[in-house]
């Protein structure tokens, strides 16, 4: 086991025994990764914080249920995934929709690289949440097919299907990406 995974396991075992300091260490270790990931779905930090803190409330209350067959990171991100799905569905008409601010930025940014990122972000916003999460888990967080299946509690075939549909929809909504001009 690599040192980071070992440290996570040790901390989670301490959390299961009721150690608040261990939970706080785990929190600080995951906050940056989760905040960056979740801020791709909502521009409001209070939403991001709410999802992260709700996630760690679940971690605190259910650490004893963790089965060491999976990685601690997969387990925590799986809780964050379910929490985020619920939260984002509730605010479907809120910040999750593309805002005028984002559209204005997309049209005025002078650099092509940033322009591409904005177009991609707009394309991603059109996807159903499960499909978008699948793509983000693979590309933004760098998870394997099997890890995404564990995080989303879905069969591998379902993950492949979600990824396939996400790619198809993005290809249609982002013709400028597929139109060549790449390296």
């Amino acid at each position: 086991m690599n040192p980071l995974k070992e440290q996570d396991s040790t901390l989670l075992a301490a959390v299961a025994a009721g150690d608040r300091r261990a939970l706080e260490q785990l929190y600080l270790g995951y906050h940056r990764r989760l905040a960056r990931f979740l801020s791709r779905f909502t521009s409001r930090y209070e939403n991001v914080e709410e999802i992260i803190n709700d996630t760690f409330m679940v971690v605190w209350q259910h650490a004893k249920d963790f089965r060491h067959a999976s990685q601690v990171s997969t387990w925590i991100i799986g809780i964050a995934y379910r929490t985020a799905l619920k939260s984002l569905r509730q605010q479907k008409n809120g910040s999750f929709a593309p805002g005028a601010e984002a559209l204005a930025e997309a049209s005025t940014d002078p650099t092509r690289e940033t322009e591409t990122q904005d177009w991609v972000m707009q394309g991603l916003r059109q996807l159903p949440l499960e499909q978008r999460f699948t793509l983000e888990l693979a590309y933004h967080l760098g998870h394997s097919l099997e890890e995404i299946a564990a995080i989303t509690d879905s069969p591998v075939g379902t993950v492949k299907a979600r990824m396939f549909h996400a790619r198809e929809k993005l290809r249609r909504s982002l013709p400028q990406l597929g139109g060549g001009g790449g390296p």
Partner: protein
Amino acid sequence: MNGMANQAREHREVSELIPWYVNARIGDADRQRVDAHLRDCAECRGELQLQRQLLGAMTADPGIEYMPTASLKRLQARLDGLDPASGAAPAAVPDAARQDAADRPAQRSIRWRRSMAASIALVAAASGILTAGLWTRYQAHSRPLDYFTVTAPTAHAPQEVIRAVFAPATTLIELQSILDEAHLRIVSGPTEAGVYSLAANSSLSVSASLSLLRAHGAVRFAEATGPAAAAAPDPPQ
């Protein structure tokens, strides 16, 4: 006929693997399979290029860093409010409860939003109490706080003239801009309450720096410290 069907199946299956070929999270056998197919399939080579562009756009550095201290403090407050029986010694619960637990935050959402302003005020007030009241305790080295702190409370940092608390969503870039404008720099912090110790960066008066700080919406609390503050306190805004 069979050969064509096999080719079509191989094309479909390899195409499905391309995202994990692109993010380098694919097993050796599957990677070799994709490599072999790419040599003969222009369509998949095009798809590979497209997915690489997509990955590049989705992994670009957002240039934003979030400060976890204030968020952690709010989590700690929630943990403090838990029923001791379920909080201090978490009981084993059925697996299905995890899904239920993930449901609960959504129900709390509205309540959370209603209390957001109150929470911010509470944090600012708590910070105020810490900075205005507990400073003397820090300086006197009286009993430590009875909860875990990320950064241990210390006496006044050298050259400190102001202590301030910023909104949790404040980015490092915004923080730097606010401090530059107020002619201040960080000399220590944040404490567990998110309190920063600030020193003067120019000959601008402390009261002028304080006014500039307080003019920002991202500044939740700002107060002068030290003898100058005691002699000529700035009115609260």
